[in-house]
């Protein structure tokens, strides 16, 4: 059994509801956590990783409050924080040895696991180099490796792909798909394509509250028939459309302009047609910049 239930979770900082009454139940698989800056993704993750306690509500792992489980819960946890740092003078290998000790692994088992992970994240060749001399993406890969050391049942990754090059990102996605069958993986990102390609379900956070949770199909179908593409060569029409509708994208061609808009109703322009919604549309629709409260 591997079930994480979040019940009416609220976290208040001062007067700000960083998390606002979030309830969700998670099982094995990859969950994408999507939301603009300040939406409360990191706050939610910090509660799942026991770094901070909820103001209200609780988190239940396999029927028991994680607060009461304590170290037994942390034992099955893997975490890559958003602001992940390393001991600059440690080599990649030493660093992983240290984290292994933190997680209570030792001896031959730890050694094998470390070598395996170094290979997996493509750092085996540079394992004896000081981590301080690594590039940003390489450090992040060390971060991914350390999170996996104890074969966590719950893997929490706060923007793991930030700073990875496309090749590494692909490698990372494949890695996650491989290991996700017996783990709950929660991953926050701003990179929509990450979520599109690996997440079983996506949770959208806005101003601390859970806006929606569902598979891509669920989320995209909620937008079906609401996304239109309008072609026009009249500059004043462009202005008008921008005023009347939620415009997601404006593409200027040589002679005309193509606008991508979201609308509940049919669009009364001659050169308009309904198009397949994309994840990007969903994101832009819900997290329209004007609607985001200042943090």
């Amino acid at each position: 059994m591997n079930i994480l239930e979040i019940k009416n979770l609220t976290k208040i900082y001062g007067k700000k509801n960083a998390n606002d009454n979030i309830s969700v139940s998670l099982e094995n698989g990859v969950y994408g956590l999507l939301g603009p800056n300040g939406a409360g993704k990191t706050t939610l993750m910090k509660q799942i990783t026991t770094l901070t306690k909820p103001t209200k509500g609780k988190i239940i792992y396999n029927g028991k409050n994680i607060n009461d489980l304590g170290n037994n819960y942390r034992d099955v946890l893997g975490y890559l924080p958003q602001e992940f740092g390393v001991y600059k003078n440690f080599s990649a290998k030493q660093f992983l040895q240290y984290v292994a000790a933190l997680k209570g692994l030792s001896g031959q088992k730890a050694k094998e696991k470390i070598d395996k992970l170094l290979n997996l994240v493509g750092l085996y060749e540079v394992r004896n180099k000081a981590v301080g001399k690594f590039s940003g993406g390489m450090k992040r890969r060390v971060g991914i490796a350390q999170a996996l050391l104890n074969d966590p049942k719950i893997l929490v990754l706060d923007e793991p792909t930030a700073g990875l090059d496309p090749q590494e990102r692909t490698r990372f996605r494949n890695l996650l798909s491989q290991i996700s069958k017996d783990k709950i993986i929660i991953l926050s990102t701003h990179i929509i394509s990450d979520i599109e390609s690996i997440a079983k379900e996506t949770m959208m956070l806005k101003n601390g509250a859970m806006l929606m949770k569902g598979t891509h199909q669920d989320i995209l179908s909620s937008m079906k028939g609401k996304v239109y593409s309008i072609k026009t060569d009249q500059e004043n029409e462009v202005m008008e459309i921008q005023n009347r509708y939620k415009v997601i994208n404006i593409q200027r061609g040589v002679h005309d302009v193509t606008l991508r808009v979201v609308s509940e109703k049919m669009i009364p322009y001659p050169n308009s047609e309904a198009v397949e919604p994309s994840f990007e549309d969903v994101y832009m629709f819900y997290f329209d910049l004007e609607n985001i409260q200042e943090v």
Partner: protein
Amino acid sequence: MIFWELKKMLKSKTGLIAIALFVFLCGVIVFVKPVLETENFYRNDKYELVADRRPGEEIAQEKFNNKIAEIETMANLEGNDPFSLKIREMSQEKLKSIKSKAYKDVSFFKVFNHRAAHPLVSFIIVIISVLIFSNIYTDEIISGMDNIILSSKNKFKVLYSKLGLAIILPIVLYGSYLIIVFLVTLGQHGTPVNGGFEAFRIVDNGSLLNGTFTINSYLMLKVGVMMLVFTTIAVFASFFSFITTNSLASISGTLIFIVFGKVCTLMKFLPESLFSVFSKGNYVDIMFYPNQFVGMYFGQVNILGKSLDLIKLCNSVLIAILFVGIALCVLTFKMILNK
């Protein structure tokens, strides 16, 4: 986890600075030496420093006789107030316990005592402790490892290792220093002999010693007091490190803790008993004038209608502060770092 904490220390800049300071200390201390019992210097009418040219034994015997004479004077002190009574009793006990009225060679102990609690030593060991322990947790925050530690299974082991090191490391450091000093002094002034004789033979204001210490027991007490001071400072440095998020704040907190007692002696309006405790038992004065504190008698204070020996009270307070520091750290682990 203690092993890893040490490894982190040794790989950090602070660790290297600490080692450099320690090596410097051991190098310098070789040249630090008190005026021996067998030596005497005085100023002549032209205010030049001249050395007494008589044989050492003779000088030493004269100094020893003077000390005994001083104790005899005090043993015959007039007055019936508690202070005079106590001084009289102390001095009479001391006279009774004198094993021999002849000077004994105590050069080794004289020098060892001087070096064991020299202000330079205290100063450097405190600097090392503050540097290391004020950063013991803030360094984790700065390097971004705090969240990984706090979400790991062994988080409490890490935290308690840090606290454990704050208690042990100053003792180990000071202990190593004492061993080095012991060997150096052995080479320079011969073997430690006559340690079973009276402590006032090597202590300059020995007539104020509270009780009949032997040289050995006096040194043991002194080392104990110094270890207590160093450990307490390291524990509080760690405490400030645990509750702050940058090393500037935590070092400031520690420094305020160290000078707090001394600063309080400037507040003349404090109740007299409290004032006495602060003026004798503050860390700054103990570090710089340990001979004015360790094993001494400086009168009584009245607390809640009870008359207590000031220095003994200070010692109890110092021990209590150490335990308060440890308790504060443990509380921080339970409450703040587990919020």
